[in-house]
């Protein structure tokens, strides 16, 4: 029983760390603001949640009211991260778009946003 639970905990934490690694690489290597925020927002949320679920599962080694309460609180944090983190990413992206930060495209390379607006005919 305990070894399976340990396996689940290790798996969740490891996959979470893997996604954190992807997030870090994404923030460092992606070409512009929007893609970097994309990596940060998605990877960060998923990996934080996976690691938190791992922690919650670890609490089930000795199931009692106290440990279940701790597990419940951790899951509550995971829910908060699930709501707050993507919203924060969206808000930062939106602010970047409003203040006309340029974007990168494979065809043209880095394009400043006045050119994007011209293409859209604004």
């Amino acid at each position, binding site marked *: 029983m305990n070894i399976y639970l340990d396996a689940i905990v290790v798996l969740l934490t490891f996959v979470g760390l893997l996604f954190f690694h992807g997030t870090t690489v994404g923030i460092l290597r992606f070409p512009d603001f929007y893609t970097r925020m994309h990596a940060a927002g998605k990877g960060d949320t998923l990996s934080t949640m996976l690691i938190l679920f791992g922690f919650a599962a670890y609490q089930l080694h000795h199931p009692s009211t106290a440990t279940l309460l701790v597990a419940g609180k951790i899951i509550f944090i995971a829910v*908060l991260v699930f*709501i*707050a983190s993507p*919203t924060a990413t*969206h*808000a930062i992206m*939106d602010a970047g778009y409003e203040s006309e930060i340029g974007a990168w495209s494979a065809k043209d390379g880095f394009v400043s946003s006045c050119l994007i607006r011209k293409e859209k005919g604004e």
Partner: protein
Amino acid sequence: MKVIAALFSIVLGVVLLVAANDLPIWGDPESPVSVHLSSYFIEHSVEQTSVPNFVTAVLADYRGYDTMFETAVIFCAGITVMTILRRSHRLRKKNVPPRPVREGQDIIICSAARLIVPMMQLFALYVLAHGHHSPGGGFQGGVIFGASFILLALAYDLKTVLSRLKEKTMMLVSGLGVLVYAGIGVLCLFLGGNFLDYSRLASILQVTEIEARSHGILGVEVGVALTVTCIMLSLYADLASGGEMDEGL
């Protein structure tokens, strides 16, 4: 006037620095704190106040006088910021560049804020009430409660928040918080004890003297939370809108 203020600050700073020389060195094993004070609080706070978290016991009971004036300092800070920034429109128009107008509200941010704000406020009350048993208390609970209003102001706008919690109410409640704290102290005086000697509340609350100290701590924490909540929001509203209370950021 500015020269006088600068001189005053410099003199006060020098006096404080000279006074700081006499403080015991950080981590000094011979200092009174390390020799007998800490161990006394650790050993006796539960039996004297029935509060398991002795940080709360020390903060709101043993040195309750100090915490009362900390609350008063926060109140004064809020009042000061308001006094400086809330000048008349005529004076402001000369030297303030116009702020960018924000177009509309973002439905995603608004929805998330609507989900999170009630949870935050509930959590703030939990932190406030659970200060006896875990890290927390009036200051922390108040900050979280104030932050929930600030989140609302960021997601919607300042007017929405100020229509729910009027500026006048805000300042009244922040004063009320200090009054609750000091009032509990004065109540103890009237009941025959020292200022902020909560054990005197036992006759009103119909509990033992030790439990009365625990309840007294909760009472002053509520006062602290009221002040901190309102001053947090007031500081944000004044600073974000440049004292005009219209749009914000």
